[in-house]
């Protein structure tokens, strides 16, 4: 009987997959000799097979939804972050627009004060007013920012006045286009056109 008890322990060790080959031989020898233990061993193996044959069951329908529904409410910002992660193009476009307008507007602000104009030798400047004197001819475009222009002579090109006034004397002549820009958007459009023109030069 003591022999059988010792072998019962070996049986379980065998079922746990922890028997040395020496112990295995020992167990086999005992099982060959003892009918009672042979029976015991086969019952154990059958029991395990029965338990393992239990059909695998699945969680009920809608399980995940119900779990998620019961979770504490998530942070709003996470939802936004997730949405943004799924729409990278939107972020790129938005970022571009923000930076673009931001830099342009800051330029607009910065340039509000400074009076600037395209330099030519034959023009006169008088208290924020650029004067193209009578009889003078300017060959090229003329841009005046934050100031006025009075044309008494001739400009063989375009004239653009940003945030300023344009006065034409009766004898004054402009061969190209004349443009006056007062609004930020107009100014922006002018800047973009200018950049594009430079790019394609």
């Amino acid at each position, binding site marked *: 009987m003591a022999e059988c008890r010792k072998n019962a322990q070996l049986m379980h060790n065998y079922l746990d997959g922890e028997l040395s080959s020496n112990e295995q031989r020992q167990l086999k020898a005992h099982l060959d000799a003892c009918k009672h233990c042979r029976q015991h061993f086969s*019952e154990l193996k*059958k*029991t395990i097979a029965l338990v393992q044959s*239990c059909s695998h069951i699945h969680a009920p329908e809608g*399980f*995940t939804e119900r779990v998620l529904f*019961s*979770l*504490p409410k998530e942070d709003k910002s996470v939802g936004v972050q997730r949405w943004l992660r799924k729409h990278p193009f939107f972020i790129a476009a938005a970022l571009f627009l923000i930076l673009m307008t931001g830099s342009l507007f800051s330029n607009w602000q910065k340039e509000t004060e400074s009076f600037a104009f395209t330099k030519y030798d034959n023009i006169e400047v008088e208290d924020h007013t650029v004067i193209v004197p009578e009889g003078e001819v300017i060959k090229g475009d003329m841009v005046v920012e934050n100031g006025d222009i009075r044309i008494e002579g001739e400009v063989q090109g375009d004239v653009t006045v940003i945030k300023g006034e344009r006065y034409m004397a009766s004898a004054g002549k402009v061969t190209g286009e004349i443009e006056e820009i007062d609004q930020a958007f107009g100014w922006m459009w002018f800047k973009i056109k200018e950049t594009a023109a430079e790019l394609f030069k």
Partner: protein
Amino acid sequence: MELLVQRRIKQVLKGDQNAFGEIVELYKDKVYQICYRMLWNQHEAEDAAQETFIKAFINIHTYDTTKKFTTWLYRIATNLCIDRIRKKKPDYHLDAEVAGTEGLNMYSQLASSEKLPEEALESLEMQETVQAAIYQLPEKYRSVIVLKYIEELSLQEIAEILELPLGTVKTRMHRGREALRKHLRNM
């Protein structure tokens, strides 16, 4: 697989519930199965399985990412089931044998509305008998048997899930097997 789970856990740590939904999808069957075999009641099993995931979500920051995720998750599940078993004692079960009527359970006292084919009935009966045998085990043996033979986990993993020394798990396994044998040997 583990890598994917670790990535999802990082997102969950940031509070992303959709990432947690993917984790639930991956493990819901396994967790539900543990709960069902431990509790042998669909309603209770679903309750316990849901509680497992909710607890996992709330305590996700306590999970040590260097360890296996399932070990941590199954620990929550088995602990919840063992708590439930202890709380609801004594109880009776629809599938438990009715006193004085050996081999009969309450199913046989309910009028069956539709006849099952002979074979399906037989295998269904066998499933019921096996489940009943598992269910009559004391919970400390039931958990090791379910984890080993239904979830097919290693003894080492079971020891980690139950936070017990390996030797204790082995002893419980031996006793559990013997108790099961007494119930199932005549099948």
